[in-house]
């Protein structure tokens, strides 16, 4: 196998990269390459121009905002985030998810921005972004704009971005005090994309009751899904069986190996397990 021929561009600034993407026909950006390179090797992607983002300085930072939120540069490597103390402190859900993103070898190259833009329906980091209510920052020829992740994940592998725009950072609000989190997935082999995955965040009030519940599911829709019925069932006096029953309304995609009913079944099983773990980790606000 061999990628189709393309012209390679190696800009050193963001402005230059955006200018290349806006002027060259059929140009695609290349981040960590752990999804783009397979697509090139298999010729699913046939760009005429490839704009490599790896030499652009300053796109891989991790900063803590005054309100405790994390701002993570799009080119931050997954393996760096997995080991980063501020990520562990402020978004342990992401660390738990990262352990299941491919393998260490792929995480050494793969980036958070690449994963969010590739937007595979079963990928871990988009699910974390959905559960954490992340906001992505996109830069284009007319400047930058912020988009709530829920709006960014527009459709199947389709981020809400123009071809000449680049995701530059993602802002992740800090996990609220006392919150209990859990990320679980089921894949046939470790490192494969999940058949179904779940991210749960339970936010307590001052006496330790669930004030806010967030339930996000991956692999069961075109994009990561929040499950409002389950979230409502968990607030106050939590009704776990009603929350799990909310997965019965899911309409997952089918493929040759995995029928829709199995993904739906797994979503319920994983949600039940994740809620037990998240509750055990929850404290008080």
């Amino acid at each position, binding site marked *: 196998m061999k990628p189709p*021929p393309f012209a390679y561009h190696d800009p050193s600034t963001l402005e230059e990269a955006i200018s290349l993407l806006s002027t060259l026909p059929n140009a695609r950006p290349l981040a960590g390459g752990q999804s783009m390179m397979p697509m090139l090797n298999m010729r699913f992607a046939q760009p005429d121009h490839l704009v490599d983002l790896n030499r652009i300085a300053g796109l891989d930072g991790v900063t803590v905002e005054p309100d405790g939120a994390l701002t993570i540069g799009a080119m931050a490597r997954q*393996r760096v985030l997995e080991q980063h103390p501020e990520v562990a402190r402020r978004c342990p859900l992401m660390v738990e998810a990262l352990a299941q993103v*491919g393998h260490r070898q*792929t995480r050494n190259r793969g980036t958070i921005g690449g994963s969010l833009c590739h937007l595979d329906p079963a990928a871990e980091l988009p699910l974390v972004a959905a559960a954490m209510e992340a906001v992505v920052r996109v830069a284009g020829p007319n400047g930058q704009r912020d988009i709530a992740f829920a709006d960014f994940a527009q459709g199947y592998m389709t981020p809400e971005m123009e071809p000449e725009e680049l995701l530059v950072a993602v802002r992740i609000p800090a996990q609220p005090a006392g919150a209990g989190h859990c990320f679980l997935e089921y894949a046939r082999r470790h490192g494969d994309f999940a058949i179904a995955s779940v991210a749960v965040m339970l936010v307590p009030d001052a006496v330790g009751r669930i004030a806010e519940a967030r339930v996000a599911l991956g692999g069961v829709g075109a994009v990561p899904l929040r499950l409002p019925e389950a979230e409502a069932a968990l607030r106050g006096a939590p009704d776990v069986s009603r929350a799990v029953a909310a997965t019965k309304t899911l309409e997952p995609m089918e493929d040759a190996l995995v029928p829709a009913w199995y993904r739906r079944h797994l979503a319920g099983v994983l949600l039940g397990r994740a809620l037990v773990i998240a509750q055990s980790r929850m404290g008080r606000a």
Partner: protein
Amino acid sequence: MSDVLHRVRMTVNARAATIAVEARRTLAEALREDLGLTGTHLGCEHGVCGACTVLMDGAPVRACLVLAVQAEGAAIRTVEGLAAPDGTLHPLQQAFADHHALQCGYCTPGFLMLAMAMLEENPAMEEAEMVERLSSNLCRCTGYAGILAAVRSVMRR
């Protein structure tokens, strides 16, 4: 435009190497075709099997998922760099032989480089982590028990 050759300077097994490649050349192909280092094997060519694992600036990466042009300035290590100049096998290579960690040998260079990174990063690694790390590469012959035994045998107890 797309058949432009790009000059890439890198260090391969501690020796300077300069090649001229098309942009679409993967690092794995460049090692094999341009530098004659055919120890790095290509299996799936889409990042699933790990046969092409090499060390890039010390970290194991899948060489089929890196473009050769992206290796500009990088230090690459391949299976050819493991044995001593006189041909004496690296202890890890010897352990693979001793523990029957290979049959057909196709996946072996990838596993060796993966295991080298493990050994260098944490020579006192727990078994569970060894299993997790080794799970990133595929072997269709051995059933993995021999590979795990070989790696375990060179780890500091």
